[in-house]
């Protein structure tokens, strides 16, 4: 029996409705349990002496003063931990040619970025550990630092890792059709140079881990703020020589992740190694400065790109040369080549065109390592694509909406394979654009812009269509050899009181996974969502799964939960049919009652069924199955990824005297397939947009030419804040995926993917009458005034 999702009046119709988040009350009352809230007996704190220079040979280390600090118990160097922890090398087989040197939990011979952990100080308090860490004396012998991406491969640039031969980590060229011929014969060719700034995720809760090694049990328990508990279980087991079955990763409440907490960090592995050596619980909570120097960075790309269009505005070719600097190591185990790879995969995404060439060049440098951060590669690819499309529209005098309509894949064209060889099952670019144009009242907005211009106000409208990669299959990591599960599972059980417990392999990071799961399970079984308790984030308890990343929680974890819930419903009805001497097919479960499916008449509450099964099983037929626990797993099989699509628009005003941009309004129409909880999806989109707006206007990690980080605090790494955020209107088109009964695709990254491009295009729309254009993010007041030629140095 399938669920008639299109009938909102169906029984138990929780899927598709805004239901309250079961964990919201706990979180707003401050009753959550984050890693830092956990205190274990005999627990110690670790703090790290970190490299103050970008590149240096590590000479003598003098620990005498540090050891004398009251409260210090033990101090570890890189050599100490190398004896108990094997290094890792972050490459994947399907990213051909990707190379990276072995990385240790603490730097052994060389420090390669400012912030790299060098010495670990263990003390009774964090304050004592900090005190001592400041007294660790390391003789750093300076080595030349490589900081500029574009010259990293020049022959006169020093090679960071001589064993690797050069500073090239990865390069991939993809070519489809004949780009050169298309460029040569096209009506117009527009070129541009784009730059996206180095960002970091700035999670509200910093990276946190507490590791307890119990030698008596031979078991390690890591309380960890992570997106992927099972992946971390494998990592700790493999590198600390513990059987995988003897590592338990527990992930309680997490204060935001955005991709930051899905990677292996040297200081976190060091914490686990130290716990094993000392046989005492060790806690590490990153402070904000450590977050800026050691949380992964992302998005540091420089791009030269071209677009060729016909007189009618048809895209004939797109040519992209993308460069990115990833720091001194590829980050384990997902690698730091994925972002560049995504740029190649995603440019031109919404459009039906023939000739495509894209190359990404990924180089090493002496800065904080970069890796996957919310919407990996998407904001870059969308900025390139949509920036070029707008410039092409300008060059041929066509309206930006019109040029997109002329090039987007028709809504009935699917399935289709893009020139980047991405396979699309079903997208809705035109329906989404129609909805957007209607929502924003495009023509009225153009009139308002015109009117404002008469008053000397420079307002602009920016459109950005996009695709988003969600629900990844093993094609993302598994085929490359990484033990990262693309499958996810859910166990659902009914307890004697008729309530339901669901254990899922996907994790809650504060985004509402538990709410989504509770309503899916509630509908699947036929109970009120309040009767469903969700357990996530414990490798010893939940089914094995991948966790939360690449917008997979609802699409993968949600489907596993639905199937497990439907299986439990079936088991319950089998027992109910025997008890009521009824035909199982004529019964249903609604709001916690077994009912007559046709009349809706109550037949028996679930708690009565629970009472009989658990306490009076003797009264049931001997051979009657009474399995009130069911587990199902789900993995996508037909497509490597479930692509979603959408379109955003920004309306803003540029103060052409100061360069300040004021965001007036933002719109997004997106298609994540089945919407399970409209409010959660809308807030995911809004939150994502805000992160994208941060990239467009504020966020930028600055280094000097020696590789010194210049802005390591929230006072000078500017994140978007409420006062500057515009009203955001969100709309949906629903094209469910056929791969699952639920039909859900991901929604976590769409907002971030499209917002920067929409803002860039809006600023350039505003500046067009003045002949200025900006393509280097963030669009600071100064960059805008420089584009306007108003500054003389």
């Amino acid at each position, binding site marked *: 029996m399938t669920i008639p999702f299109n009938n909102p009046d169906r029984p138990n119709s929780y899927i598709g409705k805004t239901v309250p988040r079961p964990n919201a009350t706990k979180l707003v009352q401050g009753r959550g349990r984050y890693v830092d809230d956990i205190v274990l007996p005999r627990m110690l704190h670790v703090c790290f002496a970190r490299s103050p220079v970008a590149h240096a040979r590590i000479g003598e280390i003098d620990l005498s003063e540090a050891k004398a600090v009251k409260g210090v118990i033990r101090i570890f160097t890189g050599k100490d931990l190398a004896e108990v922890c094997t290094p890792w090398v972050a490459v994947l087989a399907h990213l051909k040619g990707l190379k990276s040197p072995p990385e240790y939990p603490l730097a052994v011979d060389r420090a390669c970025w400012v912030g790299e952990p060098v010495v670990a100080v263990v003390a009774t308090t964090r304050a004592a550990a900090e005190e001592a860490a400041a007294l660790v004396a390391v003789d750093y012998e300076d080595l030349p630092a490589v900081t500029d991406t574009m010259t990293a491969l020049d022959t006169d640039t020093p090679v960071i890792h001589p064993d690797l031969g050069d500073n090239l980590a990865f390069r991939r060229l993809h070519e489809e059709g004949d780009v050169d011929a298309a460029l040569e014969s096209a009506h117009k060719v527009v070129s541009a140079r784009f730059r996206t700034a180095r960002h970091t995720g700035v999670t509200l809760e910093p990276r946190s881990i507490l590791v307890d090694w119990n030698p008596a049990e031979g078991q390690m328990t890591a309380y960890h703020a992570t997106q992927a508990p099972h992946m971390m279980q494998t990592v700790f087991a493999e590198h600390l020589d513990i059987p995988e079955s003897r590592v338990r990763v527990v992930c309680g409440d997490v204060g935001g992740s955005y991709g930051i907490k899905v990677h292996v960090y040297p200081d976190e592995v060091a914490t686990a190694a130290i716990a094993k050596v000392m046989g005492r619980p060790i806690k590490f909570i990153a402070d904000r400065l450590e977050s800026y120097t050691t949380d992964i960075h992302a998005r540091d790309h420089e791009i030269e790109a071209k677009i060729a269009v016909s007189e009618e505005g048809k895209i004939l070719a797109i040519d992209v040369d993308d460069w990115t600097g990833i720091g001194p190591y590829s980050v384990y185990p997902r690698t730091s080549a994925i972002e560049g790879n995504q740029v190649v995969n995603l440019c031109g995404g919404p459009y039906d065109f023939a000739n495509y060439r894209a190359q990404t060049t990924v180089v090493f440098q002496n800065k904080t390592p970069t890796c996957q951060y919310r919407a990996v590669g998407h904001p870059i690819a969308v900025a390139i694509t949509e920036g070029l499309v707008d410039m092409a529209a300008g060059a041929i005098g066509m309206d930006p909406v019109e040029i997109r309509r002329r090039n987007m894949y028709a809504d009935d064209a699917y399935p289709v394979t893009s020139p980047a060889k991405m396979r699309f099952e079903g997208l809705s670019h035109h329906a989404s654009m129609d909805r957007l144009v209607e929502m924003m009242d495009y023509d009225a907005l153009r009139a308002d812009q015109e009117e404002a211009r008469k008053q000397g106000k420079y307002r602009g409208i920016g459109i950005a269509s996009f695709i988003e990669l969600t629900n990844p299959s093993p094609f993302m990591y598994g085929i490359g050899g990484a033990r990262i599960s693309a499958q996810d599972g859910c166990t659902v059980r009914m307890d004697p009181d008729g309530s339901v417990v669901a254990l899922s392999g996907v994790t809650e990071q504060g985004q509402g996974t538990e709410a989504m799961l509770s309503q899916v399970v509630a509908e699947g079984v036929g109970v009120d969502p309040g009767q469903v308790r969700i357990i996530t984030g414990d490798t010893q308890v939940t089914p094995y799964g991948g966790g939360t990343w690449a917008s997979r929680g609802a699409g993968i974890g949600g489907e596993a939960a639905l199937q497990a819930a439907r299986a439990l419903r079936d088991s319950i009805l089998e027992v109910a049919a025997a008890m009521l001497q009824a035909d199982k097919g004529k019964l249903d479960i609604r709001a916690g009652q077994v009912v007559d499916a046709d009349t809706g008449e109550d037949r028996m509450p679930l708690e009565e069924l629970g009472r009989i099964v658990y306490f009076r099983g003797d009264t049931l037929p001997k051979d009657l199955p009474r399995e009130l626990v069911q587990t199902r797993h789900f993995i996508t099989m037909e497509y490597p990824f479930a692509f979603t699509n959408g379109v955003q628009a920004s309306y803003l005003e540029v103060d052409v005297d100061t360069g300040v941009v004021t965001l007036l309004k933002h719109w997004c129409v997106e298609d994540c397939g089945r919407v399970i909880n409209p409010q959660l999806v809308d807030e995911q989109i809004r939150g994502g947009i805000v992160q994208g707006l941060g990239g467009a206007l504020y966020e930028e990690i600055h280094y000097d030419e020696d590789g010194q980080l210049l802005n390591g605090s929230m006072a000078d790494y500017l994140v978007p804040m409420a006062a500057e955020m515009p009203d955001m209107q969100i709309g949906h088109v629903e094209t469910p995926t056929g791969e699952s009964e639920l039909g859900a695709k991901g929604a976590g990254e769409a907002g971030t993917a499209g917002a920067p491009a929409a803002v860039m295009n809006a600023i350039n729309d505003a500046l067009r009458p003045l002949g200025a254009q900006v393509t280097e993010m963030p669009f*600071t*007041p100064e960059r805008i005034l420089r584009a306007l030629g108003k*500054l003389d140095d």
Partner: protein
Amino acid sequence: MKASAGGYARAENVRHALDLLAASGGQGRLLAGGQSLVAAMNMRLSAGDLLVDISRLSELSGVTEQGGTLHIGALTRHVEIGSDPLVKTHAPVLAAAVAHIAHAAIRNRGTIGGALAHADPAAEFPACALALGAEMHAEGPDGTRTIPAEDFFEEVFTTALDESEILTAISVPVAEDGEKQVLEEVARRSGDYALAGLCLVKRAAGHRIALFSVGPKPILATGAMTALDDGDLDGAVAALAAEIDPPSDTQASAAYRRHLAGVLLRRAVARLKGDNQ
């Protein structure tokens, strides 16, 4: 990071605070609102301080007006400056400045005396004090003294106060009939320190222009003031560009700040004329 204070003592009165400072061997630090000091301590930019907590000295708080002078106690909090009717009437630019200072939580604790004594060149109150021609009242082991704002701000985070002294109050002349006071600034986000900011006071005697975030201390733009007195706005903008030497940092270059100063001056003058833009 965890702060590392060398000690803490709560002062009972100003004399007690002075004694505590005197006994601190140069390590004494006055704790008022704590909105800059505690942040610096938490970053370990300042460690080992012997904190002398003056936050409960009620005699240092409050606003009074007497004989044409507005007297503001050093411990008067930003939020009180922003809403005080005497301030709004007699020194409106101070009240206007409050909306630009950080966020509500900080304004609820931060004090005007703390802001002036901290002398952050990007802060609003020091420049306001300069534009208003305020006087700073200090008390030390040898008694009290008054320091004109022009002589008070010396360098980044450095004032004419001796380390044995406490800033007890600020006084400003009450606004005369027809006096206009405006503050203009541009910040990346609301509540951020300004990329550049400007206070303009127009009195019968002439204009006073003070800038913040364009140098190591608040700057009195005397050249621009003279030009403006002569009715020469373009000349004032040009003079302003010549008499400031702004820093470059990750937020903005010197060239941008210099340009911005001119824009702010034009906007401030437009507002004086009631031409709200």
